[in-house]
Structures are given as structure tokens and as C-alpha cells.
């Protein structure tokens, strides 16, 4: 999962049925994480009613496809233990961050694990 800030919303009427009807939000990842394309943004389906300006937890890959809420499209399998809802998404917002405690100096040390390099308040406002 990654941490990011919601910077916008996207609407798409024509879309693959397996994408479902969930709200689509534009997220700018915090820290050094970049999507593989170095675009500085990603689009995630929203399962927790996040809004612009929120800091959010974004799951990528399989956990995103299997996210709860049953918001996958009409073509999706019914949700049960063996066949969870499987949506054609690669990123999903699974939580809205209330608060973060972070040792910024430790995370910025050379050789530290890739992650947040600065405290969160300094990262907003680039939208």
C-alpha cells in the first residue's frame, strides 16, 4: 500500500463493465513512490468516501481488485468467501488517514527504506 493525497476526481461514462460504478479519484502519491510511468499521479477507485485534500491509503494490485464493498461491475462474480468481487482496477483507496506519526529525520537518512522523506504537512499544495 502507499500513502497519497487526493487531488481530484474523474468521471467516465464509457468504461469497461468490470470497472464498476465506484467513484474514481486522482491521487498524488506522497514521498518517493512513483507509479511505474513517472506520471506523479494515479487513479484509484474509492471505497471509503474520501474527498479532495484527504490523505489516503491506496492499495495496488490484487488487494485493490478484491477490495470490499461489492462495487464491481455487473459482470463481476457475486461476493462470497471463495469468489470475492473481482474488479478491473489496479488501485483502490482503502482508508482515509486521520493522523500520522513519523520520525522524519530517521526516514530521510541515507540508506533508509524508501518512503516518506518529509513530514506530511510539507507535501501538500502541489495539486
Amino acid at each position, binding site marked *: 500500500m502507499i500513502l497519497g493525497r487526493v487531488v481530484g476526481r474523474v468521471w*467516465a461514462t464509457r468504461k*469497461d463493465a*468490470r470497472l464498476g460504478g465506484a467513484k474514481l479519484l486522482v491521487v498524488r502519491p506522497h514521498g518517493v513512490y512513483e507509479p511505474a*510511468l513517472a*506520471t506523479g499521479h494515479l487513479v484509484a477507485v474509492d471505497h471509503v468516501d474520501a474527498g479532495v485534500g484527504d490523505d489516503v491509503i491506496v492499495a495496488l494490485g490484487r488487494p485493490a481488485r478484491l477490495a470490499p464493498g461489492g462495487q464491481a461491475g455487473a459482470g463481476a462474480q457475486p461476493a462470497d468467501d471463495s469468489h470475492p468481487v473481482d474488479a478491473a482496477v489496479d488501485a483502490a483507496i482503502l482508508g482515509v488517514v486521520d493522523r500520522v506519526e513519523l520520525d522524519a529525520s530517521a526516514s530521510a537518512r541515507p540508506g533508509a527504506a524508501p518512503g516518506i522523506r518529509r513530514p506530511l504537512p510539507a507535501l501538500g499544495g502541489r495539486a
Partner: protein
Amino acid sequence: MVIGEVVGRLWASRRAETLSGQKLLLVRPLGASGPAARVLVAVDALDAGPGDCVLVARGSRVRDMTVGETVADKDVVVGIVDGATPELPRVAGRKGAA
């Protein structure tokens, strides 16, 4: 997913069986810059065209679900963007630059 602008179409008469019948689009992800910036060749089953902004999902599982597991491309157009907040910057949008 990433948002990208369709900047062109691609035709290839000689192509592998695993790409036959697939419409291929050239998509430039919005905001892409620097050495890592590149144009995607994405499979399109939604009839998008140059100037459209599209959602491109990446990965084999999404590909399996949408265009089929026999298709040899893991970048798939899964949506055509109607609108966005804030307004999307466009390179050559047919609906006018924002």
C-alpha cells in the same frame, strides 16, 4: 490506473497471433516527464480516439478480465474520461486545450 491522452493509433499488418484483432492506441500518460516518460501502446475495446483522455489500467489480471487472457498487452483502456476536477491538461485535445 493512470490518466492518459490518446495521441495516436497504431496499425501493424504483421503482428503476432496474440495481438490480432486488437485495436492499439498510443497513450501519453498525463504528467509524464523526464527519462521515464514514455508513450504506452494500449489495447482499446471502448472505441477511444485521438484527443480522448482515457483511464489505462495496467497488469495481467485486469487484462484477463477485460480484453481476454490471450491478448499480449498488459496496458488496457478501461474508461474514457468525461470530466475531471481539476481540469486535465491536454496536449492536443480535440475538445480544446485547458
